[in-house]
């Protein structure tokens, strides 16, 4: 359920703001931005956290505020919790960027459950493309990632876990 917005000066600016923990991904790619309301100069933007405790939210809020203010807008940034964010909202483009960056992108929600909860090996190594990978831990370097290891190239890698 990605949001559909028409491209404006505001969305151009938002595409330029990234998640500080995954700098290759714009917040628009992440599906964090849920609503944009423009009334003249005033812009109301609703964002939703990936995880409740995501420490990047405050930074993202400040970044949006700063970028829009610099461009002459009067932004109001709201935090909304519902509907709860899901990895399904990450754009196709975003998934490609994640893989190029070395983070295995999330599978669809159904596929993911079997991987994380029953240990099936269908996550591709972002380094060498092998499917011979194992889950090391469901919890990784940030709240939104799990830790995997490739049995072929032996490199550890992050997997963006489904929510």
């Amino acid at each position: 359920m990605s949001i559909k917005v028409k491209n404006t000066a505001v969305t151009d600016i938002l595409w330029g703001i990234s998640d500080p923990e995954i700098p290759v991904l714009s917040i628009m790619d992440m599906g964090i931005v849920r609503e944009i309301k423009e009334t003249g100069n005033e812009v109301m933007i609703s964002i939703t956290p990936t995880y409740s405790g995501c420490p990047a939210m405050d930074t993202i809020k400040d970044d949006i505020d700063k970028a829009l203010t610099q461009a002459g807008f009067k932004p109001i940034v709201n935090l909304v919790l519902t509907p709860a964010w899901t990895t399904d909202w990450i754009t196709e483009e975003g998934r490609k960027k994640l893989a190029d960056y070395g983070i295995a992108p999330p599978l669809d929600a159904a596929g993911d459950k079997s991987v994380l909860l029953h240990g099936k090996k269908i996550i591709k190594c972002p380094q060498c493309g092998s499917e011979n990978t194992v889950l090391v831990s469901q919890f990784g370097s940030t709240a939104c990632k799990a830790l995997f290891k490739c049995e072929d190239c032996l490199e550890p890698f992050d997997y963006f876990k489904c929510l």
Partner: protein
Amino acid sequence: MQDKIYQYLLLTGDNAMILGHRLSELCGHGPSLETDIALTNISLDLFGQTRNYFQLAGALTTDNKSEDDIAFLRMAHDYRNVLLVEQPNKDFAHVIVRQFLFDSFHILLLKELTNSNDQQIAAIAQKSLKEVTYHLDFSSEWVKRLGAGTEESHQKMQDAIDFLYPYSGELLEETPIELEMKEMGIGADLPAMKTNYYNHIHQVLEEATLVPPETSWFQSGGKKGIHSEHLGFILAELQYMQRAYPNMNW
């Protein structure tokens, strides 16, 4: 009415906060890198949930309390967390069993709260439920692995079960506020969860070759503000910055 919802939010939020704090104490001290990171990730989720509850609670107060005011500026007897979550990190077995007993309850509670008449409580529950699914999976897997592991790990797990199991009853104990919130369709029906809760616990314990202690007596008090001495030590550390430097911000 607002005050009652405030009290109800404390009952839920304080559990997340105190358990989150206990897990944060393990940062850099986990038995392995992966478990260390897992436990602190769970801690972070719980603190995020706590913030959601306390921001909502603060908005209901007449003097506009902030989330920090609620988290840091109460006395021990004003905290409403259950005694289970304040029990110390004696060893990894205690950490895992405490987590397992709590997660098994937490998931049932959140499932109920997603149907709350209060839209904001329902929203927090929906968000938290996704996270807690991973928590429960983590703690259940470790209960099984250690329970059915070596003789030593089995014994440590059994000791932890014997010690912590009597603290599980309080999770399902219904206080007057919880009864009232249930009747208004805002809160969860705790007594109704009892069968599901213990069925799940006993099933996992059996798989782990562990035995629940024979007890008909359960610890109780935290929800009424009567805590073990552990909470005082937790708060001394948790509140230090706000007490020493009032209104400080990150």
